[in-house]
């Protein structure tokens, strides 16, 4: 295989697809399957045959369209007609109307232009459009062209330069410059070098990476191979949550396809470059998403982070230089290589380029997976894309950045999505979760819930996170059962500040964020709980639920 082979496959595939006038994309991702996506897929295949249109209409199984609240979702091309809540019963009607008669069946269409208008889909460019189980589909939309370009016309330094130019920053949370990181690993003397792709999305309420892997696994793999060429790594691991069976299956299949097409292995595309890829499965530990903990886990150990320095760029897996990158970051790479860093800079903000995927959930009209340009405001996300709060309830807060993000009120909804602005209002980018809360939520209880989560997931290595969070929980228990004292608020603040500064890893360093932001924006609720023994949402002061395992 070489570049011309890839071009040939793309042409053949395009030729093949042009033969069809229509393409019916049935979303078969984790969001739609529980609502019967596979049955709908089967129904379409049958209906197309029965109505004799199988020669002009292709039925494809695809990944997530992004509108997870209206599953199963079906996208009909050309024209991107999106059908919502399709059932096997109304499939025939849709085929009859849209394909046979050529008139879209409006009564089943998803009629919400706002949801997509402010989005910008780069990472999710192929999600819902290609069949993730067919590498030809990926190649037909320009897949692996970037890899071929790198291997045939670019030096490793050139690749790193292009990525640096693009201004791409790590999407895993901290937002470190990707080009700079690659440069560090490339310059490290020790060999062999490794790449670890982080797909350990342990945050509750977040499913962006899973959806990406389900919908477009080859984009991740191509990004990894390009990175391996840039830093001269020969072995890579994708560390994925074992709770994501569909994503695992998609990746396994994609790796096997890539291997069989000589996109992985020795002499990739006929060059000297060599790269092998394996999956490693997480086992239910949120902390394993941390940079040094993921290394421990890949090595088959307890995922306890270790202090940095030494940085993984110099001493990572088995003490060797290692590049650790979130899969969303990697999926951006082929685009940047194909179109150039300058093109990529056209999206987002000057100091924070590109887009970011978010899982938008909670009390909101249009939950789903969204991808927005950096610089969009929270208000636009909540109201324009999310469509506001359902059932006439009032907005209360939006949680940005997962369990260690911030709870932000109405007053800061005009904050932009970028690493620094979010930090300023007390939140973090995290791995991309936005949960909207309405007036029925108690902010003390919310902070308590996240603290519980972080306690459960703390690795237990360092004192601030292990012992500090446990004592914070004691205080929350006191407040929620009516035994709180005003002094407790000060203690909460003091201990939180200490945990942030003294903890070993990112988990402890961000765990008190929900506490500090709720204290900052919703302090009066704490005071109400303590002084008036009143919970305005009616959640606290009830019989204690001893739920956690």
């Amino acid at each position, binding site marked *: 295989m070489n570049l011309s082979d890839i071009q040939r496959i793309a042409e053949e595939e395009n030729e093949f697809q042009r033969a069809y006038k229509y393409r019916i994309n049935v979303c078969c991702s*984790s*969001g739609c*399957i*529980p*609502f*019967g996506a596979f*049955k709908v897929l089967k129904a379409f295949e049958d209906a197309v045959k029965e109505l004799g249109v199988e020669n002009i209409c292709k039925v494809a199984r695809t990944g997530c369209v992004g509108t*997870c*609240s209206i*599953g199963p979702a079906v996208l009909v091309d050309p024209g991107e007609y999106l059908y919502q809540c399709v059932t096997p019963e109304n499939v025939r009607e849709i085929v009859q109307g849209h394909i046979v008669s050529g008139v879209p069946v409006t009564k089943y269409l998803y009629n919400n232009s706002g949801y997509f208008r402010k989005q910008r889909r780069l990472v999710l460019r192929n999600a819902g459009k290609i069949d993730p189980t067919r590498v030809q589909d990926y190649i037909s939309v320009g897949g692996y062209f970037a890899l071929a370009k790198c291997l045939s016309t670019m030096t490793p330094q050139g690749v790193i330069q292009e990525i640096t130019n693009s201004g791409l920053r790590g999407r895993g949370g901290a937002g470190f410059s990707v080009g700079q990181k690659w440069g560090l690993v490339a310059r490290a003397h020790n060999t062999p070098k490794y790449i670890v792709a982080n797909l350990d*999305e*342990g*945050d*509750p*309420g*977040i*499913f962006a990476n*899973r959806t990406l892997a389900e919908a477009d696994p080859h984009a991740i793999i191509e990004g990894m191979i390009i990175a391996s060429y840039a830093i001269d790594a020969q072995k890579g691991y994708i560390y994925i949550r*074992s*709770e*994501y069976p569909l994503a695992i299956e998609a990746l396994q299949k994609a790796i096997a396809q890539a291997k069989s097409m000589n996109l992985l292995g020795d002499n990739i595309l006929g060059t000297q470059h060599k790269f092998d890829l394996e999956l*490693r*499965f*997480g*086992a*239910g*530990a*949120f902390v394993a998403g941390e940079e040094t903990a993921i290394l421990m*886990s*890949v*090595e*088959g*150990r*307890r*995922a306890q982070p270790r202090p940095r320095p030494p940085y993984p760029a110099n001493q990572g897996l*088995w003490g060797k230089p290692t590049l650790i990158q979130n899969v969303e970051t990697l999926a951006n790479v082929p685009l940047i290589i194909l179109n150039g860093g300058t093109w990529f800079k056209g999206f987002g903000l000057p100091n924070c380029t590109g887009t970011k995927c978010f*899982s938008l*959930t*909670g*009390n909101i009209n249009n*939950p*789903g997976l969204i991808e927005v340009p950096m610089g969009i405001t929270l208000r636009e996300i909540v109201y324009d894309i999310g469509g506001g709060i359902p059932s006439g309830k009032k907005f209360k807060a939006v*949680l940005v950045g*997962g*369990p260690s993000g911030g709870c932000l009120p109405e007053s800061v909804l005009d904050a932009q999505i970028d690493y620094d602005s979010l930090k300023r209002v007390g939140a973090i980018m995290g791995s991309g*979760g936005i*949960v909207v*809360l309405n007036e029925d*939520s108690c902010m003390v209880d919310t902070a308590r*819930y*996240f603290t519980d*989560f972080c306690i*459960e*997931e703390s*690795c237990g290595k360092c004192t601030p996170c292990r012992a500090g969070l446990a004592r914070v929980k004691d205080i929350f228990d006191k407040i929620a059962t009516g035994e709180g004292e005003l002094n407790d608020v000060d203690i909460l603040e003091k201990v939180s500040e200490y945990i942030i500064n003294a903890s070993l890893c990112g988990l402890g360093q961000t765990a008190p964020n929900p506490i500090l932001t709720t204290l900052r924006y919703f302090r009066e609720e704490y005071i109400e709980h303590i002084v008036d023994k009143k919970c305005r949402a009616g959640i606290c002061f009830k019989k204690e*639920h*001893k*739920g*956690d*395992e």
Partner: protein
Amino acid sequence: MTTEDIRRAQLERVLKKNNYQKSALLEILHSAQEIYGYLDQNLLVDIAGSLNLPPSHVYGVVTFYSYFKMRKPGQHIVTACLGTACYVKGVKQIIEAIEEEFNLKVGGSTADGKLSLSLTRCIGACAMAPAVVLDDQVIGKATKEIVIERIRNVLAGERDESV
């Protein structure tokens, strides 16, 4: 060959496939749990011996990750998602209802060993919160009535036809 022999042979294949590498411990534990249903002490001794790892190391790894189970699970497993979206949408009430209805506690099983209840931190089905998983099937936008009915059906031995 007994079931035990077959299982051991399966495990041996997994060990071999991973070249008895110490670093493949997590993969091997995953497979072992799939083969045996849970990880008991003898199994851990066996794996530790095969990989030439200290038993305490293996035990430490198994207990660190919440996915690994050292107790025999019930015949049917219901797992409630405690992710943020599910929490916000009131999964707590569903959990309480299951506990009450089937007389069991989170992390435990019913007296007859037919049903166990566990919690998970987010299955990524947040857009259809609250979500409850019943024997590998996700029940989205769950209510306590639906969940209890589905559990009753499963316990009564009916195949779940809703998917």
